[in-house]
């Protein structure tokens, strides 16, 4: 088994004097990879919301099968009868 190369947490964080370079690199890496993973999840929510709104709109426009549409059609028929 490989052994831990540092004497405690402070020594680990100091990275043998290269703390700035090593942690800046790993920090940037973590932020960018986190963003890479977060973005598609965020977009999935956006896409699903967009498509849901689109479906809802379509049901209003082509009223077959929806309650609102049936009322609308009934009103239209009444209007034509008069």
């Amino acid at each position, binding site marked *: 088994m490989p052994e831990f190369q540092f004497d405690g947490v402070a020594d680990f964080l100091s990275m043998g004097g290269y703390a700035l*370079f090593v942690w800046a*690199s790993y920090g*940037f890496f973590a932020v960018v990879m986190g*963003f890479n993973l977060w*973005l*598609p999840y965020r977009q999935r929510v956006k896409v699903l919301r967009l498509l849901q709104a689109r479906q809802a709109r379509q049901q209003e426009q082509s009223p077959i099968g929806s309650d609102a549409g049936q009322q609308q059609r009934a009103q239209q028929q009444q209007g034509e009868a008069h």
Partner: protein
Amino acid sequence: MWQWFYKLGSPRHFYDMTTGFVPWLAAVTLLLLVTGLVWGLGFAPPDYQMGDNYRIIYIHVPTASGAIWIYVMMATMAAMHMIWNLKVADMVAKSCALIGASFCAVALFTGAFWGKPTWGTYWIWDAKLTSTLILLFVYVGVMALRTAFDSDTAGSKAASVLTLVGVVNLPIIYYAAYWWNTLHQRSSELGVRDASANPPEIWIPAFFSGFGLIGLIFLVIILHTRNEILLRERRAQWVQELVQQAAAQNEVGNA
């Protein structure tokens, strides 16, 4: 085997096949990455010349080569889109651009922070560094060009053409350290290509972080492509049913 590939060309099959695959891929990716990075940062022995600074290798090398291989995938998909007019290929190509650019940026950034203590400078117009910077610009250019058209099909075609033109940059990056005798060392001298040059204590963690990042590349591209499929196939019956199902399960919160 061929039938399996053929099916991946259908947006619906691509979506269905990846649904069960994504959680497993995510779990394996996380495991490999955490193992590789913890090992590399804390347990691999320090380099006899560069001390602990060399630990940047565990993210620098895989992101740099990842940036190239993502481009190879993007170009292959662009070619398949141009030749066979394969819809899924274009969606995968579109999904490659951002993660490719981000890998390029990380490779350049980590390289700068490795170069400062080792070479004495964050940046130099070395052949390998410059050609990698050009790769970043090509990625950004492909993304910009795709959105520059009113019609999606025109954008796809233009992006495919630019992607294929940009392939000329890849061998330049890959062989830069051999063709020009500038600052960036050849990969074999780091022992990544030639295992005998460095002890296994150093390259085994790189193996883990490397495969972890390959997993992450595929994970992110698959997730992006799935979104793209839903968006482009929105008129298809199965997508409409899926959207209704997501609404019923309140997957996206209250819109």
